[in-house]
């Protein structure tokens, strides 16, 4: 029972704020100001209607974030897979050095890069191009991706590749038909972590995108915060937070295994 109490507390702490937002999002404006009093017209869907029929509609941001997330993940993996493989085949000293550098880069508070990346976007005219965001995103998630995938390559028995070499398979063939299938669990968890990062990233999207129809979800949320058109806008805020949370809650529930294994294997081996 002691444990049950602690678990209850933990769940309340983790989910309470979300549930409160869920509750708020269905409350009418009058009910909002008296959350614990009993009011006749408490429940309403008006906030959802407002958010979904705003211009541009809310689902647009979700689609934008999805597009950026998918393209970033793809680009990141395409670059990280060969690099992670190669990292085991360079001189040992160099390999350790680069792994340390990668850990450093993974720790780096990347928000400090916003100004340099903004200038970069200005110089190459990448501003307001949604898919151009995958470029910095793939780069920023590269350190973690390489480290995770490198761990997976490390775990493969070296005899496997030697045997394939004897069979006469080229590097690409070995890669495509033997190595990649074998590390697909690690690839999947890396992909989900990269996707989560790209979906959630804020400072760079904030400085690279200004066109309201191209905003990603986090920036759109911040802009909703800065532009309240309603007198007590919190109902609309709450509806927006709920709608913005649903895809990720689903993602976590569906992919919890690869997420956890990705995070923990990074910790255990890193």
């Amino acid at each position: 029972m002691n444990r049950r109490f602690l678990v209850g507390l933990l769940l309340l702490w983790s989910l309470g704020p979300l549930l409160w937002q869920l509750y708020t999002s269905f409350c009418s404006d009058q009910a909002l100001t008296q959350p614990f009093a009993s009011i006749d017209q408490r429940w309403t869907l008006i906030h959802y209607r407002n958010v979904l029929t705003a211009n541009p509609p809310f689902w647009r941001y979700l689609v934008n974030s999805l597009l950026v997330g998918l393209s970033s993940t793809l680009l990141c993996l395409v670059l990280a897979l060969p690099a992670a493989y190669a990292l085991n085949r360079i001189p040992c000293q160099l390999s350790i050095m680069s792994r340390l550098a990668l850990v450093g880069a993974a720790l780096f508070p990347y928000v400090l890069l916003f100004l340099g990346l903004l200038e970069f976007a200005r110089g190459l005219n990448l501003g307001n191009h949604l898919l151009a965001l995958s470029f910095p995103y793939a780069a920023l998630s590269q350190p973690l991706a390489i480290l995770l995938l490198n761990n997976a390559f490390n775990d493969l028995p070296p005899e496997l590749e030697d045997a394939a070499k004897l069979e006469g398979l080229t590097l690409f063939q070995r890669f495509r038909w033997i190595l990649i299938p074998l590390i697909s669990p690690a690839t999947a968890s890396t992909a989900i972590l990269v996707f989560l990062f790209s979906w959630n990233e804020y400072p760079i999207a904030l400085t690279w995108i200004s066109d309201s129809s191209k905003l990603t979800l986090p920036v759109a949320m911040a802009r909703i915060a800065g532009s309240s058109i309603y007198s007590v806008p919190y109902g609309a805020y709450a509806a927006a937070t709920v709608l913005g949370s649903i895809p990720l809650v689903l993602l976590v529930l569906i992919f919890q295994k690869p997420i956890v294994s990705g995070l923990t294997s990074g910790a255990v081996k890193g």
Partner: protein
Amino acid sequence: MIAFLLLPALLLLLVVFVGPLFRYAWLSFHADSVVTGLIAIPNGGANWLRLVQDQRFWQDLGQTLRFSGVSVGLELILALMIALLLDQRWRGRDVVRTLTLIPWALPTTVMALGWRWIFNTPYGPIDHFTRMIGIGSLNILGDPHFTWMATVWADVWKTTPFAALILLAGLQTIPVDLYEAVRLEGGNAMVCLRRITLPLLRPYILLALLFRLAQAFGVFDLIQVLTGGGPASSTESVALYAYWNALRFLDFGYSATIIMASFILISLICVVAWILLQIIIPTHSKSQAVVEP
């Protein structure tokens, strides 16, 4: 051939990580602002001199350090408790672990908006609670004494699951017979924690600490949406100040100087924190052998 495999990733990393840092170092010795027509003109060390005299920068730095220190400290303690709870075997454990992960997965700005409502005076639940138990309204987001605590709260809420998961991974590498040995010698739970758990968890605690410290120092999303740096700039972080300087004041030279200074400071802080933790957490003779397979 190998070089060919590494090159694309390396190039991308250089452009995105190293490029900006060199650019900042260069910009910090130039005036590049709206006054110069957004053209960089060398100005010696004027930016750095200004930084040293800039009360606002030092205030923001203090606030950022307070935020990072308190929230990372709380996070680690909470994360350790959660990890210990989740390390035991009980029904429904996997479900609970998944559910606690949700706050970590949400975009910061989404829940920052939520926290604004939760901390709202007088309609938010926290304000209702404090009035109910007789403390009265705290005006959490309007009073500089409390607002920073609200930002810490929101940050701890979001990032604890991550730290807990890392520590949980560490806990699961500790062989059960080590605990048995201590119990046989008559040690209680506290002794187990001090003699086995903490020393063996050391690498994980270090990892979580360094990662979270660096990220907390660069706090930006949460502050910008939850408080906008207010009230009275009491929650402004250095990253936010650098952002204002670039995008509101159009002073890129000074913004780069602030970022460069922050980068140097956070590197120093991480090194110091690492050394300190090496000293504070007792070592266990077997820890190395256990953790590095």
